[in-house]
């Protein structure tokens, strides 16, 4: 895992800490179960930050149909 990916995952994990105000309703045992799913997913997702499409590219498609038809 690159340092960039690693730190991005850590930041997101911080939001889930028991003492984080954003997370006051989450019991500890639920947090553990959630993290089992979330950590591998976020690791994969944060890997996207290593993709470099080029400055300003591409223009983001507006809707699914255009996304499909415009790029084929």
């Amino acid at each position, binding site marked *: 895992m690159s340092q960039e990916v690693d730190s991005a995952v850590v930041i*997101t994990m911080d*939001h*889930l800490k028991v003492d984080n105000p954003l997370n006051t309703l989450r019991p500890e045992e639920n947090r553990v*179960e*959630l993290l*089992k*799913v*979330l950590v*591998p*997913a*976020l690791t*994969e*997702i*944060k*890997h*996207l*930050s290593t*993709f470099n*499409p080029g400055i300003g590219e*591409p223009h*983001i*498609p507006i*809707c*699914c*149909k255009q*996304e*499909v*038809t*415009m*790029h*084929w």
Partner: protein
Amino acid sequence: MVTQELTMASLYEVQEKIRNRELSPVELTQQMLKNLELSQGVLNAMVTITPEIALAQANRAEQEILSGNYRGPLHGVPIVYKDLYYTKNVRTTASSKILSDFVPDYDATVVRHLTDAGAVMLGKSQTHEFAKGGLTDSPHFGPCRNPWQLDRVPGGSSGGSAAVVAAGLAFMGTGSDTAGSIRIPAACCGVVGLKPTYGRVSRHGIFPLAWSLDHVGPITRSVWDAAICLGVMAGYDSHDPTTVTLPVPDYTQGLTDIDLTGVKVGVPIKQYFEDLDPEIKAGVLAAVDRLSDLGAECREVEIPNLEYTLGVQMAIGMSEAAAIHHQWLSERIEDYAPDVRWKLEAGRFISAVDYLRASQIRPFIQQGFSQVLSEVDVLVTPTLPIVAPFMGTEMVSVNGKPESVSDVMIRFTHSSNVTGFPTLALPCGFNSENLPMSMQLIGRPFAETDVLRVGYAYEQVTQWHTRHPHWENDLT
């Protein structure tokens, strides 16, 4: 008389007998309802069986056919719908507690198409809860079992449809596919699963999992059967703005010739043939050899940007699913199966930036596949790196490396949801434990005819699709 052999026949054979008035749709339906009821104690593949509707539709079909009003190859043919498909006045649960009493007041567009074609609805098949998983082990309706080996999962999320079709309990089961949910159970159960191009088949009236990745399609026992069903299911629908106005071709056209001379087949060896069960690797590579024998020009290819597909699928899939379930996650969190709950809740922690970044990268992945598919007509890959896992297994070892079952199941399938390209899964052999193995054929957008043609040719020179499980031996 409706024999066991007939209930295991392909849709192709059965529709011929019905059309020629050699087979009564009513007798066929009665026998299949009986078998389906019996199977519940063994396979538990259905959420709801609808004998009254089935017999009424079969009676109507029989009367119409006898009076010379034959509607086509699905007329009088018994099928099942995944329990995500809305069926008017018939409960549609998504194998969930939350929707356990939900009775839609309209049919999904695809249900309407199939009903208009004369298909007979036997009932609603099990799904992984809300289609969010590959095991079809709903705690609310009990786990569905794999007819090849009852202690194994049928795959998912369309596990009920695949189990029913493999077991000879229906001639087609509908599926939906967001990361592989048609192809994974088709692979686990040794049947054919077709995920069409995004926009080819309407999703209107089918409970969504992730709207920009969701596809719907058929699960059948042969490629010809899948082609016929797709032809009925496909088409523009004003209720689903992602559907396209392209005409629906006759998908069976070209399914007569097994000569693949001139067809170019790409095999992404480095990207799809490492870290998988050696028996599956050997099975798919042997299938590539058969395609060469049939005249296809097979060569190794490499797909650009493939390493980003899983991140894109997860960022988009998890976010869209969390958005769809947002209200229930706040109000009915305890009513989800634990694994579905964690997966949906995790989606709430994907940032908007991650979602949009994934959307930004997605066209590059589509371009990567398009680039390779401008040089070859179809790609051949394994459907799954493993055979159907044992029920209750969370981790598996693939070539000695531990991996979670949920990750390994979607490893080779999810990229076709990111691209939207048509993908056919079909049996390519059995392993040493007599469990089915499967390969995928990936084609260009709206070129379902290509993957069907290659799949059909392969099927004609192999016998895998004629092998059936003997789940009935476990009836007590």
